[in-house]
């Protein structure tokens, strides 16, 4: 909330400077967000004398003036104000001055053929009032060439304080002054809340509360005052200036008084034009009526909202906003002033439902001092009488205030326990007393009574905060947190470690890590197996951020598309992050997912003198996946690789990695052409997905010692074989058969050639393998080698139906 320094001084007797006040506010928990200094802003405007003003030769509405601004020479200025006349004293801006009301910097210029080197200014141009009818008129005896804020006594410094939601008591200047006084920065000036004598019975009787049993009822106590025969109209300058300085528009005296009390004491009021009330005024809940509010909008009210109504319907949405029908105008003669206390939760609820943000709601939902209901009404009455005259009638009061009346058992040791700071009992008592708390009793535990304006204070820790913010947190001694008595065990859990290793392994293969949104469009979610109703946001921020992602691929592919549109068609990206299969905690899983597009292979993308650009293939994705598995301690060759492609994959160029049909670890493949075109990518695109949660937790090892290294002294020998098999035969089957042919002698089997062609036969392929034999205890004879070769051929032919190529 905003207030001016002079306004603060209405409530606080202090010699402190603006800087001291600003510093103190922040250090006691009323954070200053900004300080605007009107005097500083206006200091380059000076008082000046219009020595002559003559008709502009080329423009009816302009005058050519010679201005004395105290510089010793006359300045030519063209001015369009109707009151620019010879002899006038006004306010002048030299060329180069920033004009806040117009948001321009005035330059030297030429207006319709006449030189103009500055500007004579209106009050609106200086943003000191809305008056833009003409330039400012100063008295004839005003000095010339003096800084205008010095001359006019403008010393308004506007302080903007951010009030935390617990501090309803500080939503008025009075409450802020009370906190500053408690800190010791001055003395709180008491407000005269004493009853104003009445001149007769109130024409509007106390408002009946018409609520059915069990209905929500926002009103607690309603205090109204009928004031007869007032003279309303624009409020005095000091009041207008005060409101304008904090960004409020002056309306008329009565309305300005309600705003003054709301901002000044944190006590919202509402004023009705009593002559516009028809029939009986009551408090009740709305029943679906529409309501024309003072913000010129129409709201539909429901049964949870309390209104002040007459025979024709709602006059005011209680505690939130008044209505147009009974609004106070310049012509209002009889006014009915309301000061009521409300249930903060129900006001908050009504505010949320209607979306109305008003000064009244802001204060009432944070709770307003219940002890101020009738005093607030008296204060408002006094101000109306002072500024508008009129005769006050008897107060019309109904309902009861709710006082929390909190008492806290407060062990004095609590401050030391929670802060580490020793504060004496005397000091604690003094601080609390200054803040309005009453500490009684003796001994280690005292009784503390909480003042009516601090409903946020309910327990011991709250009192510690009050003590600490007055002592200053900077005075709490810094103390090291004791170190643990042992070397830290492993910090990261298995899954945390897997994420870290997966990231580093993929980056080491040349992929760049992206972090993409957890929510994607419904269309993309559905394309990747998501789109469940429980994973759709009810209030998404954008239409392409509605569904929790079922896969990291849509985010990466969208990223690839953006990169392609920026001229980078070759990208290698990965993300390690959460996907959502349900809205339960266990439905959130961690995936490592990567893509490569166009020519972004492991050796880098695009043309290079060493080799032609290679389009990425499914084996690039398989290699990325293998690298992550390897980093996590799993050997891809020991896992099952099956031709069950992912839903996003090209059906013939993709596969699945699993421990068994029930434990699926991930997928790799070329992206399906329909998805490539969905993302407008040029292609090819390959991808892999690995479910980091699916890998089983490593077994606990009884020992860290590695198995003994066995090195044979005998030379290994190798033999090549080529088989012609059906094209559908998987390489893995050939390898498995060859490796199984002789488990003791066969050390390794690799595939070194695969080809198809007319000479191999239609629907056939040739696969060449190299089998390495490792003798165990003696060199192998030719016959023994032949025998193993025979076993290999037999095993492969049996397993695959193929034949050895002659």
């Amino acid at each position, binding site marked *: 909330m905003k207030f001016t320094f002079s306004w603060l001084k209405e409530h606080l007797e202090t010699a402190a400077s603006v800087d001291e006040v600003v510093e103190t506010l922040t250090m006691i928990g009323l954070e200053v967000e900004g300080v605007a200094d009107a005097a500083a802003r206006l200091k380059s405007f000076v008082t000046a004398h219009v020595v002559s003003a003559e008709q502009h030769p080329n423009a009816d509405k302009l005058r050519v003036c010679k201005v004395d601004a105290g510089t010793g020479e006359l300045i030519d200025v063209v001015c369009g104000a109707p009151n620019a006349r010879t002899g006038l004293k006004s306010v002048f801006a030299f060329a180069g001055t920033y004009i806040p009301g117009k948001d321009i910097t005035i330059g030297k210029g030429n207006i319709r053929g006449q030189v103009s080197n500055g500007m004579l200014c209106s009050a609106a141009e200086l943003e000191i009032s809305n008056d833009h009818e003409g330039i400012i008129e100063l008295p004839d005896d005003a000095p010339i060439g003096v800084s205008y804020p010095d001359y006019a006594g403008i010393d308004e410094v506007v302080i903007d304080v951010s009030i935390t939601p617990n*501090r309803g008591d500080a939503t008025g200047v009075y409450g802020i002054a009370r906190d500053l006084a408690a800190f010791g920065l001055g003395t709180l000036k008491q407000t005269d809340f004493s009853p104003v004598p009445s001149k007769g019975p109130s024409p509007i009787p106390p408002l009946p509360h018409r609520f059915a049993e069990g209905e929500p009822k926002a009103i607690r106590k309603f205090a109204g005052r009928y004031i007869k025969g007032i003279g309303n109209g624009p409020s005095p300058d000091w009041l207008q200036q005060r409101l304008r300085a904090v960004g409020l528009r002056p309306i008329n005296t009565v309305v300005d008084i309600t705003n003054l009390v709301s901002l000044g004491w944190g006590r919202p009021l509402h004023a009705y034009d009593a002559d516009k009330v028809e029939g009986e005024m009551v408090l009740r809940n709305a029943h679906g009526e529409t309501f024309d509010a003072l913000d010129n909008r129409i709201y539909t009210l429901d049964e949870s909202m309390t209104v002040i109504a007459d025979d024709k319907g709602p006059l005011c949405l209680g505690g939130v906003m008044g209505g147009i029908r009974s609004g106070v105008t310049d012509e209002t003669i009889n006014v009915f002033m309301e000061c009521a206390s409300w249930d903060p939760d129900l006001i908050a609820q009504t505010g949320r439902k209607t979306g109305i943000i008003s000064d009244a709601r802001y204060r009432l939902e944070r709770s307003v001092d219940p002890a101020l209901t009738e005093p607030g009404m008296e204060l408002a009455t006094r101000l109306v009488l002072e500024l508008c005259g009129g005769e006050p009638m008897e107060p019309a009061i109904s309902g009861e205030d709710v006082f929390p009346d909190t008492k806290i058992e407060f062990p004095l040791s609590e401050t030391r326990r929670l802060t580490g700071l020793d504060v004496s009992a005397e000091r604690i008592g003094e601080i609390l007393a200054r803040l309005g708390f009453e500490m009684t009793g003796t001994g280690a535990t005292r009784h503390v009574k909480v003042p009516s304006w601090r409903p946020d204070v309910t327990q011991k820790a709250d009192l510690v905060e009050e003590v600490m913010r007055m002592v200053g947190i900077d005075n709490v001694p810094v103390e090291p947190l004791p170190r643990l008595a042992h070397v830290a065990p492993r910090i*990261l859990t298995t899954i945390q470690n897997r994420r870290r290793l997966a990231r580093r392994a993929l980056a080491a293969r040349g992929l760049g890590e992206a972090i993409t949104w957890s929510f994607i469009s419904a269309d993309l979610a559905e394309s990747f197996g998501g789109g469940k109703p429980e994973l759709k946001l009810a209030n998404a921020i954008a239409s392409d951020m509605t569904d929790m992602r079922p896969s990291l691929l849509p985010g990466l592919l969208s990223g690839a598309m953006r990169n392609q549109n920026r001229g980078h068609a070759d990208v290698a990206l990965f993300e390690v992050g959460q996907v*959502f299969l349900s809205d339960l905690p266990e439905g959130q899983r961690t995936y490592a997912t990567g893509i490569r597009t166009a020519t972004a292979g492991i050796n880098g993308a695009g043309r290079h003198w060493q080799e032609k650009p290679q389009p990425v293939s499914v084996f690039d994705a398989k290699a990325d996946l293998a690298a992550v598995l390897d980093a996590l301690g799993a050997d891809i060759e020991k896992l099952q690789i099956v031709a069950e492609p992912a839903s996003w994959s090209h059906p013939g160029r993709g596969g699945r990695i699993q421990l068994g049909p029930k434990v699926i670890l991930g997928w790799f493949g070329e992206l399906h052409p329909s998805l490539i075109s969905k993302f407008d990518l040029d292609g090819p695109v390959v991808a892999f997905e690995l479910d980091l949660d699916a890998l089983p937790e490593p077994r606990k090892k009884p020992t860290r010692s590695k198995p003994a290294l066995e090195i044979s002294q005998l030379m290994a020998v190798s033999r090549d074989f080529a088989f012609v098999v059906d094209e559908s035969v998987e390489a893995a089957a050939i390898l498995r058969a060859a490796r199984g042919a002789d488990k003791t002698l066969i050390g390794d089997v690799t595939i070194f050639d695969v080809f198809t062609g007319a000479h191999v036969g239609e629907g056939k392929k040739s696969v060449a393998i190299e089998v390495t034999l490792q003798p165990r205890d003696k060199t192998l004879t030719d016959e023994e080698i032949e025998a193993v070769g025979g076993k290999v051929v037999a095993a492969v032919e049996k397993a695959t139906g193929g034949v050895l190529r002659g």
Partner: protein
Amino acid sequence: MTDLAPMSASLKKAIADADTQAALEAVRVSALGKKGSISALLATLGQMSPEERKEKGPAINGLKNEITVLIEARRAELEAYALEKRLAAEKVDITLPLRPAPAAAGRIHPVSQVIDEITAIFSDMGFAIAEGPDIETDYYNFTALNFPEGHPAREMHDTFFFSPGADGTRKLLRTHTSPVQIRVMQKTNEPPSAAYLTAPIDPPIRVVMPGRTYRNDSDQTHTPMFHQVEGLVIDKSSHIGQLRWVLEEFLKAFFEVESVKLRFRPSFFPFTEPSMEVDVQCDRSGNEVKIGQGSDWLEILGCGMVHPNVIRNAGLDPDVYQGFAWGMGIDRIAMLKYGMPDLRAFFDADKRWIDHYGFRPFDLPTLFGGLSS
């Protein structure tokens, strides 16, 4: 007798003139081959009288040996010359550029890197890493954290909600990492339902909780998804003096500066009491914000003593157990440390941004090797 001198001179010249191995071989054959001139002379020795042989033999053999040596020397010379010539022809332009190594091309996202940095620092102080789900219940995100129903503080969170389920309750995207505090403290008999979920810990508790958080808000400094890290200490004695130490030490280590001044201001969070906001000393005079210098302040985190209601909600006795918690934006401290201007670029997957602001795969943040290189 025949004078050997002219033959010797002629052969020597022929050897010297031979500029290929083939020409040299032809010279060898012409002299030492079966029909060679020296071979022919040697053949005459057999028909000579012993006296004559004694006189001429050494001269002829001497010539043979001399020519043989000369041919061999010339052969070696020619070989050396040929190798030199071949090597000269095999010269490559060693300034031709390489493909970048895969590890030189790959990048770690700054958020992941900063989480590793945070982990390195807090693991030294004895903290573990705890995690909870992104999709939360109202209970964990608000109620257990002492946000009263309908309180304005709830509304300030700009929460993303899901549609109400069959039981009428609606789930939400966590607005902060604080629900993990409750999950860590709350005693249950059931094991966590997923591997990433941290099992409840008995006090003393020292955990940091990094993760994704969400608020329905978007402008230059706010994105609807962002990252937070929360810290929690629960035992029987930890207080604000120690909280100050932990935060000062962390910020000093994280920003890798000799010293850093902090300013603690009283504030309000429903789940801490007393609550504080912390400003860090900085210098804004240049193009970048320098932490740990100058006389300006920059708000960097919120903290406080865990609210007794929160301790109670987690099933512990607030008169026995106490402690502190803090929370800060990971993206924000990453932006401050590494001078990254725009938060929105964090989640755009722009290759140029990742290449520029990302970290190399072997830039491993550790305390022993340094957080950043």
